[in-house]
């Protein structure tokens, strides 16, 4: 089966997705929907210390963070700032060394279907079809339920015709979309994304950002995304959490109030971008001296 030609078409639309107007309306609805939503995820004084041959390494140092229901949070920082560790703690894949991590008021003690995770590599299982991968978390559902949910989320991420394909027949962007569907199919309370578009080419990445925004609005999901791409963070986030490294700390929390769908030439977009870049340059000087 030769999917390559179909792949490139479906990954790179020639025009902006037509959903622009509708998207703006839905985003406005969301804004009107009433006062601040309740806190979904709460981190208080979270630290993480790893043992290493050279002694203990502090990856996270007293991180405080509140994420509201339905909020899109981007955690941004240079490599080594502990942003992935923070995400893995929220996913329950790592335990915090100190502090409190709560999801809807209950401590997070391990992974589970209430927390969806998308990694940088798609991590689809190569021996399963796209549909079987998407339905992987529905092991305990009946076959009929599984079929309904699987096809619903396959269509949501735009993989309509590819249910029977195997992961190695998909392009990087398509595989990542299948991974997003797999993470969403259990209707998790929170979707955690660890640099999900980091391995994609620039055009596919922009397209995927718009798609993810659409899914976020459609599903009214709470999303936390780790990225090192400033542009991506400003494009998607309600709130940007900027971290500094060695040890990983929350440096600044920046609200982004630009109407959606966002334009990259919006004055606020440019202003936040400049502000974040300056911040990172300042940090870099701190590590490397004035020489750069």
């Amino acid at each position, binding site marked *: 089966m030769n999917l390559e030609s179909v792949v490139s078409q479906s990954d790179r639309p020639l025009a902006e997705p037509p959903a622009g107007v509708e998207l703006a309306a839905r985003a406005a609805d969301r804004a009107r929907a009433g006062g601040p939503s309740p806190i979904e995820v709460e981190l208080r004084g979270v630290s993480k210390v790893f043992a290493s041959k050279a002694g203990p390494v502090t990856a996270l140092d007293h991180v405080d963070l509140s994420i509201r229901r339905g909020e899109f949070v981007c955690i941004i920082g240079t490599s080594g700032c502990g942003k992935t560790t923070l995400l893995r703690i929220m*996913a329950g*894949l790592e335990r915090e060394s100190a502090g409190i991590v709560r999801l809807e008021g209950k401590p997070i003690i*391990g*992974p*589970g*279907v209430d*927390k*969806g*995770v998308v*990694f940088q*590599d798609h*991590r689809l*299982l*190569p*021996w*399963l079809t796209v549909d079987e991968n998407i339905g*992987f*978390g529905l*092991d305990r559902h009946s076959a009929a339920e599984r079929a309904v949910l699987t096809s619903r989320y396959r269509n949501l991420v735009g993989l309509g015709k590819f249910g029977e394909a*195997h992961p*190695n027949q998909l392009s990087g962007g398509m595989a990542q979309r299948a991974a997003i569907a797999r*993470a969403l199919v*259990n209707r998790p309370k929170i979707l955690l994304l660890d640099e999900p578009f980091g391995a994609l080419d620039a055009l596919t990445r922009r397209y995927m950002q718009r798609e993810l925004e659409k899914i976020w609005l459609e599903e009214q999901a709470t999303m936390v995304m780790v990225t090192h791409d400033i542009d991506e963070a400003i494009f998607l986030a309600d709130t940007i959490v900027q971290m500094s490294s060695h040890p990983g700390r929350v440096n600044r929390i920046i609200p982004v109030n630009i109407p959606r769908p966002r334009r990259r030439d919006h004055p606020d977009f440019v202003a936040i971008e400049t502000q974040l870049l300056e911040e990172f340059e300042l940090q870099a000087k701190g590590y490397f001296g004035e020489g750069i």
Partner: protein
Amino acid sequence: MSLVLPVGLALLWQLVSQLGWVKPYFLPSPLTVARAANEMIFETGLLKDTWFSLRIISEGAFLGGLLGLAFGFAAGISRSVEKLVTPLLDAVRQVPPLAWIPLLVLWLGVGNSGKVVLIAKAVFFPVFLNTLQGIRGVSLDQIEVGRIFGYGRLRLLRRIIIPSALPSIFVGLRFAAGLSWSVMIAAELLGSRYGLGFRLHLAQEHLMTDQLFVIIILIGLVGYLLDLTIRTIQGRVLHWRRNFVG
């Protein structure tokens, strides 16, 4: 394409014997061998001996394969089981199959059970080692996918570890099948009253070179078919793998 070499070789063989380059009792002509095959199959029950060998093989391979899979899985899943069993098994593995024959004859007599044990032992190791290696080769990233959805040990095993280890397990099974067939022939050669190895022994004693050829070709053919069977199953089960095909 795959027939080019066998057919070419047969033609060369016919040519050599027709021109009388080699004495017939060193290299009988293909026609003589065909006549011998006809006689052996329809008059002296060669197929019964083949069937006999195959039956012993399947008993031994089943036993050894099952034990190999069981031990492989146990050692693969649990470090302590691995530490418990591998030193002893590694030592046992170093003793070649034929070295066990005197002891097996002493304990179990010259009957079939000794051969079954010998084949089981030959099959056990490739299956055990490849199963263990296959499980150890499962990537932590894939295990994490299971953990995210709250999979426990049993579901991890069924939905991630086994499928992920299958390619390696098949390598073990295929290798073991080839090995068991050769061990079988060797064992029969040394002491048996039935089987292809026994017929080989007979033919050698009576210097019936044409019969030797018939049996050798048959051994090769049956071995090839055994491998082809496993390969076909492997292709079906692992259809998702996309490998370099030349």
